[in-house]
């Protein structure tokens, strides 16, 4: 008879201990701190604090600037994810068809991956600088009255453009490998069955890339939610008037610049909840449709 073992040696725990330690120090502890602080009201100098239950949350949820930031974040994230996925899918399909010099094309398209978000933000900032920015001048010379310093839509355009540009190379790599994972003979069978290349793409290639696309959708939404912080901080800093401040950026501004630790913690807790809900939603409802 097989005896069920409950006693194990300590060795496996030793192996995972460093990872657990890192997660605890850099993730669990700060997260717990955020939850704790979201219930506190602190004076501006950090001298005293008071337990206020859900007042911080009430304040946040009733504040117009938070709802505006939340709406902007959703629109921004969806646009960044959809546009960067669409562009990189197009580029990957094209690059996959290239026969001569394929490697150079691919390397060039992947280069952007090596750029850190703040650097991308800096590049964008320079290109849209009203004094010397080439793109700023180009848009205005075409007759657009482009002014991202004052116009909220223009500012949003700048942030989205930089964020998309930064993300395209990442998506490109995944799509290219996804495309190369589709058996060549399946593509060939499709060329015998269907004359129109466009129709073939939508009926064969795209459905077979669905798992990749879903994965990238999750990655890109997370990217747009969190990692674009650096881009926004270096380019628009949330201006004009907080119109381009995503929720993460607002947490930073309210907490570290506005010194409202309680309110900022409440915002980050809300952010955590939103992201968890989003993740559950994605896996439950979308993933079910993409597997074959």
């Amino acid at each position: 008879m097989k005896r069920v073992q409950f006693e194990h040696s300590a060795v496996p725990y030793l192996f995972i201990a460093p990872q657990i330690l890192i997660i605890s120090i850099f993730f669990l502890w700060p997260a717990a701190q955020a939850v704790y602080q979201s219930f506190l009201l602190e004076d501006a100098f950090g001298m005293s604090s008071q337990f206020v239950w859900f007042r911080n949350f009430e304040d946040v949820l009733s504040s117009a600037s938070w709802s505006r930031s939340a709406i902007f974040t959703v629109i921004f994230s969806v646009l960044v994810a959809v546009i960067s996925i669409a562009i990189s899918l197009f580029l990957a399909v094209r690059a996959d068809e290239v026969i001569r010099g394929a490697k150079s094309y691919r390397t060039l398209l992947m280069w952007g991956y090596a750029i850190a978000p703040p650097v991308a933000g800096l590049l964008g900032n320079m290109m849209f600088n009203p004094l010397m920015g080439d793109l700023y001048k180009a848009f205005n010379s075409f007759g657009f009255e482009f002014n991202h310093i004052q116009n909220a839509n223009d500012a949003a355009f700048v942030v989205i453009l930089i964020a998309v540009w930064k993300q395209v190379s990442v998506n490109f790599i995944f799509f290219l490998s996804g495309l190369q994972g589709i058996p060549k003979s399946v593509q060939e069978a499709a060329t015998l069955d269907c004359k129109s290349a466009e129709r073939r793409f939508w009926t064969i290639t795209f459905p077979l890339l669905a798992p990749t696309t879903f994965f990238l959708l999750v990655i890109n939404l997370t990217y747009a939610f969190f990692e674009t912080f650096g881009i926004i901080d270096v380019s628009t800093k949330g201006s004009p008037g907080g119109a381009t401040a995503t929720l993460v950026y607002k947490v930073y501004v309210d907490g570290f610049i506005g010194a409202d630790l309680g309110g900022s913690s409440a915002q980050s807790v809300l952010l955590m909840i939103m992201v968890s809900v989003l993740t559950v939603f994605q896996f439950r409802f979308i993933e079910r449709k993409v597997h074959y």
Partner: protein
Amino acid sequence: MATVTLNQAEKTYPNGFKAIHGIDLAIEDGEFTVLVGPSGCGKSTLLRMIAGLESISSGEISIDGKVVNKVAPADRDIAMVFQNYALYPHMNNFDNMAYGLRNRGYSKADIESKVREAARILQLEDHLDRKPRQLSGGQRQRVAMGRAIVRQPKVFLFDEPLSNLDAKLRVDMRLEIKNLQQRLGITSVYVTHDQVEAMTLADRLIVMNGGIAEQIGTPIDIYEKPATRFVAGFIGSPAMNFLDGVISDDGKHVTVGDGVMLDIDHNIAGGRAVVAGIRPEHLSIAQAGQGTINATVRMVESLGAETLVYLDFGSKADNVTLRLQGTHNFSKNDALGLTVPADKIHLFDTESGKRL
């Protein structure tokens, strides 16, 4: 129902490699043609050129009298069965078969009846709602066949369709393909490296080597009169025995090994260096001491229905294979005397390998 004609068809890859060297071929309506050859001989490339998956560098390919060099694969009215099935993994088996019909604008009712009919022929009726990955290899290959037959194309192209199946299933599917092709009467081109498939399926066999059609003929023609040493060695299993030899001065014998004289039935000037080819099944054991070839047993393989004996012959230790019906008891180093009828000796030119 169509003919396929190749006129000096050539394929040169961009890197300069010439995969197909000018092939001429006329496949008749309803004929089952098999391309056979070792890997890298260009047989798949040739098939893919007919399909339109590879461009034609020079020469012409016509289907039913119409040159198709520039015609898109989907417009050539051909259907192809791939080695790894190439089913669309995200579609169920019904949709896999219906896909080509839908793209050609058939009506819903038409598609339904055609797919059901194909499924009935291939015994797939119970599996239409399933995805390809839920089927076994043999069933998948049937779906792939179904996808080909629903369209009732002018030409069937098969690219080693049975290579991924296990041995028993391969035999079953081979018979099924032959049956189906005869019933539907559709012109077929079939690529394989398996000579049993080639011999059993083909109305006409094309043996390819290095991008050249070495010989084109019926399977039996090729077996009995191989045009080159390559064909002789490739068709037939176990492979033909080759012995270097010289034609005797009177032209009636060929001297092989350490001066063993074999009677020949050819008309060749004496003194010429040749390669004598003898199929293992044409050698027989003579009475003790009477055989013309004296060889010693190196290894015996008993297959039940037949016995393969590998022998060393002459001081150069040429290898000779002997194929006998039934079971026999030989042990290593037994000496055997072998005979061969004069008309079963094939002679090839030493230099060119051509049949003499």
